[in-house]
Each structure stands twice: as C-alpha cells, then as structure tokens.
C-alpha cells in the first residue's frame, strides 16, 4: 500500500524513537561529513613523503603520527574515507541499478528468461561475496573504477532478487490489475504502484549493502588488490601498517576503527529503517 502523509509522519517518529537507528544515522552523517571535508580538515598532504620522519609516533603536529613514508596518518585516514565511502556508495548504486533492472526484466519477462536470470542470481548469491569480488578484480586488474564495478557486480544479485520478488508479489495484486483494466500503461503502473512499494525494501537494502561494499573493499585492499599507490584506502592502510605492527600498531589500528565505525553506521541505519518500514520483520 502506498503510504499516506500521516503514515510517513508516524514512520519518521518511530525512526526517531529507535535509538540504535538514530545513532546509525548520526554516525553515517558524521563519517560522510569528515570524508567530504577531508581536504579542508587536514593540514597535511596525504601523499607527500618525508622519509627522514618515517614512523614518527603521534604528537601535536601529527595527531596520528606518520607512516612508513613519513606521510601524515590523519590526512591519509580522512582521504581514505573519501575513497572508501565513494566506493561503497557508487558500488551500491551500480549494483542497485544493474540488479533492479535485472529483477524488473525477470519479473516481466517470459518464464524462460525469468528462470535463466533468477537461477544465475541464486548461484551468485550462494557464492561468498569476497571470493566473487576477488575473482572479478583479479581479472579486471587494479583501479578505482574497476573496484567499483567488481563490488557492484557482487551486490547486484541481492537487488535483483528483491525487485523480482516485489514485481511478482505486486504485479498480481488486484489493484494493479484494476489499474491496468482502467487503461493505465505498464509504465504508469510500474511508476505509481509497484515502485513505491519496493522503495522501502530497496532503501533498507541500499543501506545494508553500502555497509557490505565498504567491508568488501577493505578486504580486497588488504589482500593487495584495488587502487594503486599512493592513494590511501582504509584497507590498504591496514595492510601497509602490518610490517610495523609490533613497533607502530597505530598505523593499522586507526584505519580499522574507521572501517568498523562506518560499516556499523550503515548497518544500524539499515536495521533501523527496516524496523520502521517493515515492522513485521525481526523487531
């Protein structure tokens, strides 16, 4: 059912009361703001090296110390945030668009096409996302765009399934048939009746999968795939910090905390949204 304005007000109030969800939203906003404001917030250039000062511990001028090349860790952390968030959101968008299209096609197409698409989706979903991402990236090679594409491909099946399910469930509903009988085109039916109902689930999925994308990116960077030097990402900062783990553990600890907080934020947000938009699930 499409929500009325009072429904929306109720939902917003329910969301505000859900402390965890609110916390997630606040945290997500904070992390995003830090990422966007990175150039303004950091005094130091994230890629400028100074070998003589390498591995300097935190002090007043370099709040989080310096890395193995003498680069300011805080500046790199903030800039890495931009990359990680960019990858997370864009990969989710790519996956979302691709997956939703697939789901729509599957929902409206004939049995054969639908089976082919959905069986593939099933197989892909059964596969661990990291292994999938690893294989795709190994084929594509390094680069920011390729990383986004690889993770987007990994996330697409989840969207496909949700959209396909929604199309199946809703396309058969009486009110849709009634709308069609009244002369509405497929497009309008899609736009006014199906999409708004799917929107809720898709938004929840978007938040949760952004979290997933950021986590997968961290794993792939840690293994050594992904962007090229000197671009920092939280995952490759952890990796670059591991040779110095016993002498300068902060090099790996802080980026890890950043990943944890950001992923947690989007997970809390997604969870909260799900509670509000579909209260029958979980609670």
């Amino acid at each position, binding site marked *: 059912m499409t929500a009325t304005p009072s429904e929306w007000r109720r939902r917003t109030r329910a969301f505000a009361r859900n402390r965890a969800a609110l916390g997630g939203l606040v945290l997500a906003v904070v992390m995003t703001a830090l990422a966007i404001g990175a150039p303004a917030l950091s005094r130091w250039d994230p890629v400028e090296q100074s070998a003589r000062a390498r591995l300097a511990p935190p002090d007043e001028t370099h709040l989080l110390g310096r890395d193995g090349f003498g680069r300011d860790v805080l500046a790199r952390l903030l800039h890495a945030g931009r990359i990680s968030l960019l990858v997370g959101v864009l990969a989710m968008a790519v996956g979302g668009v691709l997956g939703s299209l697939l789901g729509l096609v599957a929902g409206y197409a004939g049995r054969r096409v639908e089976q082919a698409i959905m069986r593939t989706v099933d197989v892909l979903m059964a596969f661990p996302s990291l292994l999938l991402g690893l*294989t795709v990236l*190994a084929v594509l090679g390094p680069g920011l765009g390729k990383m986004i594409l690889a993770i987007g491909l990994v996330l697409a099946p989840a969207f496909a399934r949700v959209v396909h399910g929604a199309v199946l469930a809703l396309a058969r509903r009486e009110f849709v048939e009634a709308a069609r009988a009244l002369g509405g085109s497929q497009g309008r039916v899609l736009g006014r009746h199906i999409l708004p109902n799917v929107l809720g689930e898709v938004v929840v999925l978007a938040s949760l999968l952004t979290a997933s994308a950021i986590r997968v990116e961290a794993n792939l960077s840690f293994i050594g795939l992904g962007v090229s030097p000197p671009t920092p990402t939280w995952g490759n900062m952890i990796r670059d910090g591991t040779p110095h783990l016993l002498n300068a553990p902060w090099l790996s600890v802080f980026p890890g905390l950043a990943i944890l907080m950001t992923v947690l934020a989007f997970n809390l947000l997604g969870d909260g949204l799900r509670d509000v938009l579909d209260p029958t699930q979980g609670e």
Partner: protein
Amino acid sequence: MLRYVASRILLAVPVFLGVATIVFLVVRVIPGDPAVAALGDYASKEAVEALRQRMGLDEPLLVQYTRFLAGLARGDLGRSMITGASVREQIAHALPYTLELTLGAVLVGALLGIPVGVYTAIRRNRLADYLGRVFSLAGLSVPAFYLGILLTLLVALRLGWLPAVGGGDAADAGDRLRHLVLPALTLGLVMTASVARLTRSAMLGVLRQDYVRTARAKGLAEGAVRLRHALGSALIPIVSITGLWAVSLIGDSVTVEVVFARPGLGKMMVGAILQRDYTALQSVMVVYTAFVVGINLVTDLAYAWVDPRVSRG
C-alpha cells in the same frame, strides 16, 4: 522425501558445472604469462616457449576446456603451472586447514551466538537487548582480518599464550588445535554476531505463536515454555541460516588465513592469483564451488528433515 533429496542433488550438478565453466573462462582472461612466471627472470625466449607448449597454453581454447572437463571427471585437478606439483595434492593438504577453521568458527559462533540470542530475546527492549544488538552489529561490521590483527596483538604478543603463526604440525593434533584457537575465535566472533541476531528474531517470532500462548495458559512454568517449545521451533530457521553463514564465512576465511598465515585454501587462492598460476587458481575455485554447493545442499536437506513441510510442498 527421497524424491526431494534426489531432485536437490540433481540440481546441484549443473550448478556446479556451470560455475566451474565460468571459472575456467575467467581464469584465462587474467593478464600475465605463467610460463615466464615459472622460469624466472633469466630464462631465454626459447625456454619460455618450450614451457608454454608443455603447459598447453598454446592450444585452442576448446581443447583446453575439454581437457579440463575430462580432468574434473577423473578427479585430476592438473599440475601447478609454477612448480609442476599436483594441484590435487596441494588442495588435499590445504583443505583440512580450511575445513577445521570453518568448523571451528561455526562451533564458536553457535556456542556463543545462540545463548546470546536467546538471552536478548527474553530481555527484549531492555538495556541488555540494545547492547546485545549493537554488539551483534559491531561483529557484523568489523572486518575479520582486522579482528584477527587485534587478537594477534593482544594474545600472541602481549600474553604469549598462543602461537600466532601457521597451521601447526600436521601430525600433531594438539599442536593443530593450539594453532586453530585464535583464527577460529576471530572468524567465530564475527559469526556470533549474526547467529545472535537471527536467534533473537527467530525466538521472538516463535514466542508470539499461538501454541506457546496455549502452553502458558496450561500453566507450564515460564522457563520450561521458553526452552522447550520456543527454542525447539526456532532451531528450524537457525539450521538453515547456519548453512548460509558457513558459506559467507568462507569468504572471510580467506583474509583470516592470510593474517594468520594458515596454509589453507584461501592462502593458496591468493597465492595462485598473484602468481598467475591458472591451473591452481581454477582448481581452487572449483573446490570452493563444490564446497559452497555442498553446504547449500546439506543445509537444504537438513532443513527439509527438520521441517517436513518443505519436502512435501
């Protein structure tokens, strides 16, 4: 029931073959020449060409594919392009380490997660519940390798209790177990989070059911009602979800194996990717596929056995 089992098994085979074919194709698109990688930096052009011929890299794709399928049917997973050693032997050696890690993590996850989930379901909407939920989400949000690094720093280094390196002496079960603790704990803690969440929602769903109300009405003690009826029914979705999580664990197990330098499939796969060892890479992916398909199959069957409605439906 038997028909259901048979149909699931039959379905698994084409899925497995399909993915294996995709793996075969994908692996051949990876850039880099394995023959040069094998011979090292000094070799002459002639030597490299000779090795390419021996590796069968110069043959048409279709021939290579037929060889691949025939090999799979025989259980022959080929020879490493770098060392020439049998890939099946390598995998046979690595697989137990990955299996122990996955099983250990599942055990940790279940043993810790289910009680936490039950507790937070009972104490719904109170402080413990909120804390539990945030902790669960944190567990889902932390990258497994990072947790591994933190545990390494804490336990192996400061306290020196447990080894932080490798898989342990192959023949010494006790040593293997000691080397398993930290990695299984790392991976398991990540799983605990989701098991706790799912147990909680399953329990909540069940606690509302009519028959539970009936049992309460009959006057059974609250505790007995909870444990005997609620948990029993909640186990149905938990079983199916455990399968899903075992599969997702496989992904994280790759980075955990790298962090703890365990000689398992994950480390082998990363090594194969970095060294352009096509044969080893495709065989490891095929094994992972079999693993995933197998787990899904077992989960489906377990679910059907536990909930007879499924096989009839």
